């Protein structure tokens, strides 16, 4: 089985937000929830980079570690998923997550945030694959169809890579060697406790 990861090549990201739109459309994500977002650092200054960020499907995921009802699980592909039928919407995963990935459908006073929603790496949830029940709760399950996450598939500059960690790291490594520069794999140190050695 593969170890699925995201890798964002900030030299290529043009902040077009197509990944955000693709994700929202593919999974019919409700208004106010962003499973993926594009953050621009050093905006208008030297060293400006745009980084598309979602759940990184961490090794030893902090969300799973702090969840009071243990609703998280890791698939054989190392994708971190959660069971919305068990989630109580306490918000702890959001306090622990380094990437701000967990999202809540409502404003959330008096504990009324609703069930947490986050990127599933287009791998659905605990319901049977590609059923209506799974789609309503988690969105489409592209992995079960043998496809990779749509955000990366749609990326026009191929800045966002999704797939087996070894393969996407080698693609990125080759790019950096060819062009002679790169800002590194964003979030990898935090999520996977490793970086892509060039």
């Amino acid at each position, binding site marked *: 089985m593969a170890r699925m990861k995201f890798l964002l090549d900030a030299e290529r990201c043009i902040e077009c937000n197509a990944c955000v739109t693709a994700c929202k459309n593919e999974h019919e994500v409700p208004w106010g929830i*962003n499973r993926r977002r594009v*953050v*621009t650092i050093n905006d208008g200054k030297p060293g400006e980079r745009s980084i598309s960020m979602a759940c990184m499907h961490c090794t030893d995921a902090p969300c799973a570690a*702090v969840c009071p009802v*243990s609703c998280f699980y890791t698939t054989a592909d190392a994708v971190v998923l959660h069971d919305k039928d068990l*989630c109580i919407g306490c918000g702890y995963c959001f*306090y622990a997550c*380094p990437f701000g990935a967990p999202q809540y459908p409502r404003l959330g006073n008096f504990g009324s945030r609703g069930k947490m929603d986050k990127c599933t790496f287009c791998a659905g949830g605990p319901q049977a694959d590609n059923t209506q029940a799974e789609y309503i709760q988690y969105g489409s399950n592209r992995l079960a169809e043998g496809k990779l996450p749509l955000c990366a598939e749609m990326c026009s500059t191929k800045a966002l890579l999704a797939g087996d960690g070894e393969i996407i790291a080698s693609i990125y490594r080759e790019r950096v060697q060819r062009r*002679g520069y790169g800002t590194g794999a964003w*979030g990898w140190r935090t999520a996977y406790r490793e970086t892509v050695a060039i």
Partner: protein
Amino acid sequence: MKLRILGLLAALLIGAAAPAIAQTAPRAPSMAEEMEVQALLRGTHIQGRISIPDEKAATLIQPEGREWRAFHNVTLAWVGGIAVLGMLAILTVFRLSKGRIPIEGGRSGRTLLRFNVLERGNHWMVASCFIILGLSGLNLTFGRHILLPIVGPEAFTAISQWGKYAHNFLAFPFTLGLVVMLLIWVKDNIPNARDIAWFKAGGGLIGNEHPQAGRFNGGQKMVFWITVLGGAVVAVSGYLLVFPFFFTGMEGMQLSHIIHSLLSVLMIAAMLAHIYIGSVGMDGAFDAMGTGQVDLNWAKQHHGLWAQEELAKGRTAVQPPGAKASGAD
């Protein structure tokens, strides 16, 4: 031909030279790696600009989540576990070594009004809220280790969900009760020199001395101030949590949770001692909050100065129908 080969070789050498140097030179850390390490060491965010309305989403990476996780999973679990189990162990040892504290000379059959209906009603409102708040709070830290394996995931989620709602809404009567408690009891809970003597004598619990006390002794005053001051801090930090990100940002939410949970487990430990001594630990103590009428001998034993005052007033001592003739006191 020879020249062409030489030229090709030269081109190859030049072409190969740049990556060869890059590979042999010590690799400079990438921008991503460097920023992540700096943010982690300094405890700052990697912050940017975002084109969606949710400002929180402009934080690319927040490393403090790591500390909060360590607090929630390790520090809180240990502090809470030691506080609660430690207090239960102390109370068990105390019970086994000293037994139930009896009323000296037995019950006289004559009683004094210790707490009126407002005081008792308010006490039980705060107490019942506290028990549910405490259990639902402990459930968030310990439930998945203790309750989840017993009842299963679905039932545990249902319990935790109801616990969460109860926790959020009972915060209001709890806080109201604390304010009333402060108003009606603060005058009898100002610390004074007698309390120091009371603590020096171990409150009569350790050793056999019997220190004098007014309406509230040193230990009760301590319980009062733990409840009022601790409760105030727990309430304020709790309101910050119940309105997430309304008053504060990520650090504020994490800090509120840390203060709220640490103080809460310590208060739970303190209240276990309070519950013990007010119920099964001491003969005659529960009457104060049960019927409100305490036995005169109990009052003299534990609150001698208060009993004297009340007797001097001479109006609150009630003679129940089956009372013994005077002389019992």
